[in-house]
């Protein structure tokens, strides 16, 4: 049913720390590895060893240069489904294949009902959904729904594959609907933000902006390189010969 459920009290989601993400792509590969055998399997690759590599990924890490009056810095930016509270990708779906779970707010696609019209990917401002041209259906992040409730896994492994893989703990998983949860407190503490709030999709996932520059970093004065002086002698002769 593509009508949205009454607002679930539980809002499972991710919080991503842009201060500590080092852009190592471990979350990207861990996601691909788990999910190509998981709920939305396969994550098809087209021409994987050829000249026009393409394929389905649920998580992609961009890199940006953020320049303010305090200076510039590189920010690594993982982008995946934000499991919005107002997911237009769900309401535009003509078949009922896209749905938002009433129990925990996870947005999923029922691959057996998807007709591959791609309208949901047009309705998502974040580019979270990717079309599988091989299977002919739309695919997206499942928040590793087949891990987080999986009794066959050890309790500490019942987190999304991207969270488990992150070497700098830049990715956090939890219930953002519970203000007392560790993840909600982290968002409060660090001033976590929603992406494109002006569009009104109310993303569940939040991003923690990089911490402010401390201004305590040592400045290293390196002398500028000087232009090569014209030399005499043998090296000068070689220089003149090669310059001709």
């Amino acid at each position, binding site marked *: 049913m593509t009508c949205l459920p009454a607002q679930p009290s539980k809002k499972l989601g991710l919080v991503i720390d*842009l201060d500590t993400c080092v852009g190592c792509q471990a979350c990207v590969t861990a996601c691909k590895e788990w999910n190509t055998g998981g709920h939305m399997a396969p994550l098809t690759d087209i021409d994987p060893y050829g000249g026009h590599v393409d394929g389905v990924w649920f998580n*992609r*890490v961009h890199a940006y240069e953020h320049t303010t009056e305090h200076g510039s810095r590189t920010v690594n930016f993982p982008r995946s489904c934000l499991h919005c509270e107002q997911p237009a990708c769900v309401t535009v779906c003509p078949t009922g294949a896209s749905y938002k779970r009433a129990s925990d707010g996870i947005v999923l696609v029922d691959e057996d009902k998807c007709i*591959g019209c791609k309208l949901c990917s047009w309705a998502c401002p974040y580019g979270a959904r990717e079309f599988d041209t091989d299977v002919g*259906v739309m695919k997206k992040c499942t928040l590793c729904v087949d891990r987080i409730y999986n009794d066959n896994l050890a309790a500490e492994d019942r987190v999304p594959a991207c969270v488990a893989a992150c070497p700098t703990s830049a990715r956090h998983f939890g219930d953002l609907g519970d203000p007392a949860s560790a993840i909600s407190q982290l968002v409060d503490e660090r001033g976590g933000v929603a992406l494109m709030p002006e569009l009104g999709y109310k993303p569940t996932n939040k991003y923690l902006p990089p911490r402010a520059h401390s201004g305590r970093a040592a400045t290293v004065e390196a002398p500028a390189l000087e232009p090569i002086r014209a030399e005499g002698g043998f090296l000068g002769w070689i220089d003149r010969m090669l310059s001709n």
Partner: protein
Amino acid sequence: MHPAFSVVFFTTATGAGYGLLALLGLLGGLGFIPADFWLGLVGMALALGLIVAGLLSSTGHLGRPERAWRAFSQWRSSWLSREGVASVATFIPAGVFGIGWVFLGKSGGWVAVAGLLAAAGAVVTVCTTGMIYASLKPIAQWHSRYTLPAYLIFAAMTGSVLANALLQGFDLGSMAMLIWALLATLAGWGWKLATWRYNDQLEIPTTANTATGLAGGTVRSIEWPHTEENYLLKEMGFRIARKHGAKLRRITQLLAFITPVVLLAIAVFLPWPLGAIASVLAAVAQFAGMLVERWLFFAEAKHTVTLYYGRE
């Protein structure tokens, strides 16, 4: 946005088909157009043929067309589903009207009721098509107050020019229909110019700053997550060179508006069959022009996901 030909043809053909169906239902049902068998047969075949060809073309855009029937289920939330329901529902009064008007040679009474219902169904279906695009917030050029009226105006325009060509072809044309088609084309031209002017100065509220949550200053993309174009860039990141955009806008205006206006104006003064030839040429030129217009509608639309790839 990637201009898939299946969708470009679908929206253009069904727009013209529903426009023609609405006019035939309205004018034929009420007896303003005589219940002539061959005129009716060709007219209804043209209208329904354009609609069916368009709907079939739209399934070419699907990854799993064999499941297309599922699209009738979510009319409570989805404009695409509503379009599917409205398009199929419109076939019922259209069929009843066709039987009465074409095969029984009747107008008025139940034929008029069926004709009016078919016309209403045509208008509703075109509205649902327009709303599919107008409801998409990530695409500012579509999520605008110009989109829904554009679909209605262009359906009325192409339907009227087709209806005029049809009536002229059977030597049943009227000055009123000819002038109406001319005015509808001028209205379409005006609306397209106003839309382009609005889109060209459109200020999109989303920026790379709000897209990344990095407040203040500038956010410059320095590395993509992938080296080749992926689905997002192929589908949502379609770009059109500025010089081609300007040229295609001129081609659109020439084919869809200027040529039909000139031909229809000349047809006012020409006897049959010269007036009929001019009217048919006007319809053909306009349909070709509207295909270019619809291609541009997609190609010039910018999706917010391109912000992540450093494309303003």
